[in-house]
């Protein structure tokens, strides 16, 4: 982002170029993406059916843990949608490989910022993934349409959209920072999987976090995990409103900035070490 020694007139357009290249490169994997998207629907369906069985087993209650059947189903459907738009697919493995194989050396010479470059590729990847996965996901939404709630009003929808973008940025910065561990350790995949396990639970992939005991939820709210999935989904479902909504959005933005700062800082530390090793 420091455009000091760049030729004038091109600082932004070159990154548009990167997005274009990224789109072309990821198009190669469209069959993989379709395969993934379709297989990903299997556990989703299973979880939805499981909850339906829970509701059937308690016929005298209209809601379980504060969720109606429609709200619970919508939670998982919207979570899938957000995940499709924001999840980091292979970017972290690629970044780690770039560091291990020494491919980042060229970025130290070129007037191109590696983080921005990676962010562009991430965006390109999500655009292609979303356009491929949209078909199977749309079929699912159609099948489940009687259980799919829509946002209460335009404002909710707009805040949801903003929150999804922030989620994507947060997801990216976290994965980017984790991948930078490759400066220090040979094999980063175990660390990535360990963090992912926490995110899976504390981010709300498994179940909506507000069915947890309140003290646990309060504790989780001090971590960035809920803002990686749970928060935008609960905005969509209208479960956060009023002052809480704006406060949540501000905290999410705060985590994004913190993530960005951390990514920059770890990179500068890593580069120092990288030069020492490679020099």
């Amino acid at each position, binding site marked *: 982002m420091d455009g000091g020694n760049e030729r004038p007139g091109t600082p932004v357009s070159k990154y548009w170029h990167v997005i274009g290249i990224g789109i072309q490169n990821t198009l190669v*994997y469209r*069959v*993989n993406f379709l*395969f*993934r998207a379709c*297989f*990903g629907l*299997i*556990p989703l*369906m*299973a979880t939805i*059916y*499981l909850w*339906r*069985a*829970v509701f*059937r*087993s*308690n016929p005298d209650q209209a809601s*379980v*843990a504060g969720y109606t059947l429609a709200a619970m189903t919508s939670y998982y459907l919207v979570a899938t949608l957000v995940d499709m738009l924001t999840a980091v697919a*292979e970017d972290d493995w690629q970044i780690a490989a770039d560091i291990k194989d020494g491919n980042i050396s060229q970025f130290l010479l070129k007037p191109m910022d590696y983080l921005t470059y990676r962010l562009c590729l991430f965006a390109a990847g999500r655009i292609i993934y979303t356009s491929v996965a949209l078909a199977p996901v749309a079929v699912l939404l159609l099948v489940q349409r009687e259980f799919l709630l829509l946002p209460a009003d335009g404002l909710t929808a707009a805040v949801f959209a903003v929150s999804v973008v922030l989620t994507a940025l947060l997801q990216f910065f976290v994965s980017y920072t984790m991948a930078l561990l490759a400066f220090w350790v040979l*094999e980063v995949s*175990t*660390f990535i*999987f*360990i963090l992912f*396990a*926490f995110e*899976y*639970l504390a981010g709300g992939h*498994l*179940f909506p976090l507000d*069915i*947890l*005991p309140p003290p646990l939820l309060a504790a989780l709210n001090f971590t960035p995990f809920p803002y990686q999935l749970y928060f935008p989904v609960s905005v969509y479902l209208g479960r956060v409103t009023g002052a809480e909504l704006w406060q949540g959005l501000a905290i999410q933005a705060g985590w994004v900035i913190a993530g960005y700062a951390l990514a920059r800082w770890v990179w500068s530390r890593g580069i120092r070490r990288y030069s020492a090793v490679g020099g």
Partner: protein
Amino acid sequence: MDATSPASPPVAAPGRLRRYATVYAALWRNSIVREMGFKTNFLLWIVVELLWFALQLCFVAVIYQHTERIATWSKWEVVLLMGASQFIQQVFTALFFTNCSNLSELVRTGRLDFLLLLPVNTRFVISLRHVDLGAFVNAASAVAVMVYAAGRLGLRPGVVELAAFGALCAAGVLIHYSLMFLLATVSFWTVRAQSIIWGYHNLFNVARLPDAAFRPGMFKATFTFVLPMLLVANVPVKLLADKLDAGWEVLLLLGMTAVCFAVSEWGWRRSVRHYTSASS
């Protein structure tokens, strides 16, 4: 691809069995040496798997905060099911998983040529080359969870019941193996290994859920009669917890095991016939 090709002299059945046992022992030794080369990584992978298992148990704990039963299943019955599913999955991982997911890599790099030339059954050596020792540790933790859950349920299975349970679990492992091997051979050319692994992990997710939660329909039929995920762990656990509706479920599991294995063998033979090495 049989060992009885004209080049190798015909061997009597017991001798052949001993030869394969020797080969398999050598593969085990290799795997142990390889794993011990990366001790930290070995331990970290065990931690990763334990964490994901704990996650599934958390899910059960949270759901049962809000309900007494899921269909006919009580909390500890579902925990027993999760344990059994994890046990079957980990034994499968230990013996077969890496090998199946490596298959497309063998095809891509042309290293399959080398394995085809070895004087042993190619499917044998491809399927059992690597042993993932860490998975046995995780299988043991699954057994611990099962023992605890059985204790909470007041189950006192006898020797015969335990043996039957073990045999049904073995059938489950075989189903996982056959399906994943089929998946790996069918997608030889189009899909990369990463996606196969990912795809199969999604199927594991179905295996650990109680079958009674699913109403008769497309989903249940598919995962009972096509990809029998709802049989793999459910049937052994129902046997152990005296929940079997009828004996036919056991027969269905065994029958589906045979069918899956036969289909995967058919798919494998077809794929090998179409195999034309990598350009070199």
